[in-house]
């Protein structure tokens, strides 16, 4: 059986290529049909904020890549409730559907459930 991978994405979308490169690992794994989960933690939640204007920063929009996750077979998508609360982000306003909102204890159990973990 294929080993499962949890990618923990902690970087805001416009602080450099980090968030995009983290997402690329997930999309590549999805393309290979591997069991992959994606947890948005800390500033990573800003990747899911609605109404972003990448053009104003002369950046390429990340949201199209994020919306492609289900098409790549990546459906285990999680956000950290504490990270949202700390940043005043309402989790029901985030731009991805089917996000599971997890508390700290749930996240510990989530990490435990996966074979391998990458935090970026």
């Amino acid at each position, binding site marked *: 059986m294929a080993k499962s*991978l949890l990618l923990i994405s902690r970087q805001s979308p416009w602080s450099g290529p980090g968030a995009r490169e983290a997402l690329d690992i997930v999309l*590549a794994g999805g393309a290979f049909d591997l069991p992959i989960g994606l947890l948005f933690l800390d500033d990573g939640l800003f990747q899911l904020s609605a109404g972003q204007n990448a053009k104003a920063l002369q950046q390429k929009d990340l949201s199209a890549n994020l919306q492609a996750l289900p098409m790549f077979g990546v459906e285990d998508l999680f956000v950290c409730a504490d990270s949202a609360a700390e940043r005043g982000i309402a989790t029901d306003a985030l731009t991805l559907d089917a996000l599971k909102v997890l508390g700290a204890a749930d996240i510990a159990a989530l990490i435990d459930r996966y074979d391998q973990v990458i935090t970026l």
Partner: protein
Amino acid sequence: MKFAIALFSAAHAPSSRRALLFAQAALAGGHEIVRLFFYQDGVYNADNSIVTPQDEQDLPRQWRTFVSDHQLDGVVCIAAALRRGVLNAEEAQRYQRSAISVEAPWALSGLGQLHDAIQDADRLICFGGA
């Protein structure tokens, strides 16, 4: 135990040094390293154009020697490397750039090599992530 090692930090970051020390210790302990995968700023660890002052640790050279001596599979993510100007001869020619800064023992390849190593290894050990 079979380890896959992923490195995300630049050549002079303490975490890149820890990655090398871990890799050396793993082999010394009789373990196997199925692949080293350099991603994000980790690609700079394979950059042979980095010049380190004489009284400092030359990490790119130490990585190169380590990988050559043990004939390890050292893979540098091609997309991350291109973005950072770390090119081998083939890519320098393809994009018509004058600087070639990656050679053997390093191979430029895609993220599939990371997933492949993750599947192959008992443990994935990451250094220099966020």
